[in-house]
């Protein structure tokens, strides 16, 4: 085999790769079932007190299709912040920004990272696990819970989220997904109590969210 034949083989491979790259990026976008703006203003004893809209720059950077950022308060005066972002085709129109990347930029450092189990049956019958971060700025603490709720799964790890993204894009032609983050300030140094409240809130959110997101089957 001469060098010219070799180069023709390689150029053909490059061309095939190029076709494949284009074919996989034209995956159909899956719209959200119900707009997140209708997410309940009452969740258990929590009541919606205010909502933010991010600037259009931030939204463009995130490339998010639908999102909410709500603050809820309970009768005891605790507050919890809920962010949900929905992407109809992750990696094509935009992609998640893990709080592991963003938060440390704002003066907040990560003090602890762990996984927490949640009650519920929202993960295709498997145990539900979400990620928890304890973040610190001076002597202030916040509990952050986050997870990816994608195509009927609850995923706590950035790495597994990628693996399932590739698998579902290849075998189901779907790339839709959502990112959920719950943040709660720690009051009076009671980290454990804050964790418990945030976890209970998270359990309710992920069940409610199932009505909005496309599930394991569209």
């Amino acid at each position: 085999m001469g060098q010219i034949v070799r180069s023709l083989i390689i150029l053909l491979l490059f061309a095939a790769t190029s076709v494949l790259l284009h074919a996989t990026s034209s995956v159909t976008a899956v719209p959200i079932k119900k707009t997140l703006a209708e997410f309940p203003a009452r969740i258990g004893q929590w009541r919606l007190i205010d909502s933010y809209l991010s600037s259009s720059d931030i939204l463009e950077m995130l490339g998010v299709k639908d999102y909410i950022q709500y603050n809820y308060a309970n009768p005891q005066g605790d507050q919890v912040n809920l962010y949900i972002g929905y992407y109809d085709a992750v990696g094509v129109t935009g992609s998640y920004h893990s709080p592991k990347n963003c938060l440390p930029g704002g003066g907040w450092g990560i003090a602890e990272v762990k996984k927490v189990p949640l009650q519920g049956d929202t993960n295709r019958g498997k145990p539900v696990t979400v990620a928890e971060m304890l973040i610190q700025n001076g002597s202030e603490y916040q509990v952050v819970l986050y997870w990816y709720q994608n195509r009927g799964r609850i995923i706590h790890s950035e790495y597994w989220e990628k693996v399932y993204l590739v698998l579902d894009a290849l075998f189901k032609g779907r790339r839709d997904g959502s990112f959920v983050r719950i943040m709660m300030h720690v009051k009076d140094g009671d980290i454990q109590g804050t964790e418990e409240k945030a976890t209970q809130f998270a359990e309710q959110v992920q069940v409610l969210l199932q009505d909005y997101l496309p599930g394991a089957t569209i």
Partner: protein
Amino acid sequence: MNTRAAEWDRNTALSLGVVLAGLLLLYFPYLKTLLVDWETNDNYSHGYFIPLLSLYMVYSIRDRLKNLPVQPGYWGLVLILMGLGQLVIAKIGAEFFLQRTSFIVVLLGVILFFLGTKYFKALLVPVLYLVFMIPLPAVVWNKIAFPLQLFSSFLTEKVVSLLGISVFREGNILHLAETSLEVVDACSGLRSLVTMFALSAAFAWLQSLPVWKKWLLFFMAAPIAIFANIIRLTGTAILASRYGGDVAQGFLHEFSGMVTFFVGLGLLIGLSVLLGSPFRDPSVTIGTR
């Protein structure tokens, strides 16, 4: 084909040129975003120099390359297929690091497929060197930066208190009598660590040293970067205790990064001279790798 060594001929040069052009064309969308990263990501502002250094490495062994036998190897095709597969999967997964590193895999595959094992071995380091121009995924970066940040704060606290300045450390915050300093991500030392490794790899390659000394020089980048960073943080703490936190913060972010770099560079040059000329091993031939 593998047994009969062919020489560089017009077909080899032409085919290789066309394939390399095709490779750059295929990867253009994935590599052009690197320019943006180098400009905006302070941790990778050294990125511009990496392709140039890599080319210089190839240039430095040009005479040896000319005399190597061309022995095309079919394993190159496997490597190319693996690299292209990596690109497709990484594209689907929206993972930039894997998209970009697949370029290196395919390039190595092309070298092996067209020119053979001898060229592959000779060019392995200059091509792998390109890894230094590709930013690590942020999740991985932060995983390393955070413990390094704590370690730097811890060592700085020790050094500063040894110098007789009273200091109290709380996580990444150094409390001095007058002011407090926070050891932020930029001072974690990871930035200088990556840059030092890129530099020490180039030094190790370009110097004619026995292989073990090359590896030693390469890995000494870690203690050198940490040492230079401690000097930086300690200097900042001393300034802060004398002239207040604002001066120190200004100094920290404008000037001291350069100081760290030149201290590290000086130490690297010193070490490579030390490893080189005075104790030169006469049995070593130039360019063993």
